[in-house]
């Protein structure tokens, strides 16, 4: 069974591109531009990997990270952000983040990180 990945970013292009690339790699990918909807989906379905933007309207990436850690200790979280500050990175590491990508994201590196996270 392919690994389940969810991508959350309020930029539609990010969702689409990451979905395309990772689908190409053989993963099953769902995307959300609305973080509230994404969180609802996460609550009803366990994903192996969550790729989320940090700064979003309503619920932000840190809230999602905390919730995923609580619900699914086995799941990994990769964070993308255009607002990369050291404070944000430290906060994320404290919350057991798998990887942290400042935007613009390099697709090859992201692919490598995803592979590593899913142990395949």
């Amino acid at each position, binding site marked *: 069974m392919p690994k389940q990945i969810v991508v959350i970013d309020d*930029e539609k*292009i*990010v969702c689409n*591109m*990451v979905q*395309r*690339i990772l689908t*190409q790699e053989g993963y099953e990918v769902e995307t959300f531009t609305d973080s509230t909807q994404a969180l609802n989906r996460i609550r009803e379905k366990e994903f192996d990997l969550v790729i989320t933007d940090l*700064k979003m309207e309503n619920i932000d990436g840190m809230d999602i990270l905390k919730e995923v850690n609580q619900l699914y200790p086995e799941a990994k979280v990769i964070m*993308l952000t*255009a*607002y990369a500050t050291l404070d944000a990175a430290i906060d994320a590491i404290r919350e057991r983040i798998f990887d942290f990508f400042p*935007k*613009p*994201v*390099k*697709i*090859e590196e992201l692919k490598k990180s995803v592979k590593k996270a899913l142990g395949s």
Partner: protein
Amino acid sequence: MTIRMRIIIAAIIQAAIICVISIFGYLSFNTILSKLRTIEIIDDLNISLLEIRKSEKNYFLYSDVNALKEVVGRGKEIDKVVQSSKKEILKGLGPKTYNVLGTNLSKYLELAQKVISTGKTPPHFGEEFRTLGHELTRLSEVLLKRERTDVNNRIQNSIFMLIISLSAVFLFQLVVWQYFFHFIIKELAIMGNLIQMASQGKLHEVAKQTISPKNELDDAIKALADMARELEKREAVLLQSEKLASLGILISGVAHELGNPLNNISLMAQGYLSLYDILGDGEKKNFMADILTQTDRISRIINNLLDFSRQKKQELIEIEPGNLIEKSITLVSNQLKITNVKLHKYIEPDLRPIYVDAPQIEQVLVNLFINAIQAMPEGGDLTVNVGQEVENGYLIIKVKDTGLGISKEDLLHIFDPFFTTKGTKGTGLGLSVSYGIIRQHHGDIAVESEEGKGTTFTLKIPIYQPKEKEEDAQADRSH
């Protein structure tokens, strides 16, 4: 002519009038004094003549020659007095009457002398002698009466002239002071007006005053206009430097804001390269179109910022308040994203347009937003309420934060230039410049704050009343 010159001239005229009055008074009192001396002499003469007539009467009653001798003795004394006081008597009687008096006196004395020396009384002596004596006393009495009337008249005239002169001086004073008051008050009113305009921030109108100084007050008015021009220049510089200070804060947010479209472009390009072989023609086109959309987005962000930074001449335009607020919020939207501040905006529908210099009002709003965000370092709520008071003709914008608040002492100074609570981070110009801009728009800016709870700024900006509409309304009222 300078005011100093005018006052000197008025004082000289007044001094001249008082001099003329004094000279006139001196002359007239002098005349009265000499007249009084004449009256004294004539009075003495009159008494002596009456004594003579008494002796004359005694002679006719008792035929006593000694009485006639007395007449002659006294008559000679009178003659002496008449001779010695010729000048005064001449003045009173005139030469003709003086001669008559002299001739009559000598004839009278001659007759008496003749009777004394001959011891005989010539025929008609009694009648002639009495007539002459009577004529003498009559003359002196007429003279006395005339002189007294004359002195009386002169005194009365002097009193009258004095009253007239005093009234004239009083009137002159009144006119002169009235003139000065009118003149000075008129100029002071112009100055007062200009100062009031300046205090209302209408420096431009004060600066427009062109006046060629003719007096000291004109100098002051000209200085006021020069000052306004200078202030206007500095205000423009201040406005710009404050805007650049705001811009510095905005830029950090914009740098982040650019991250998203740049990331999108980068992802599209990377995807395009790695998926090139499996992409259809349509998809390739879509990729490029998406990239173009993202570059447009970058241009828009940069243009917004450039638009804000540009120094422009004040230009009033009719604008929908909603658009203005949205644009100002866009400028700080990145600040909101990189902090934990949540924006809540409530914009009433159907807001009337305002007539303002849009970039300037944007500058004020951006400044208030930045202040609010900076007052909430731990995050909080920024609420923007926009409504209108149609009956008062004002658009009301409330900018409320849940930040640190401002102390009561600081509240008194927050609109003062160079006053800042942000230490070296602030220029202390933001609110002072905002205050200037809002006053220039005939609006008002007020602040309420509670330490630890937050601050609310309230802007009042007049709603636009197009001139034609006003005229129509007036026409309607008159029908």
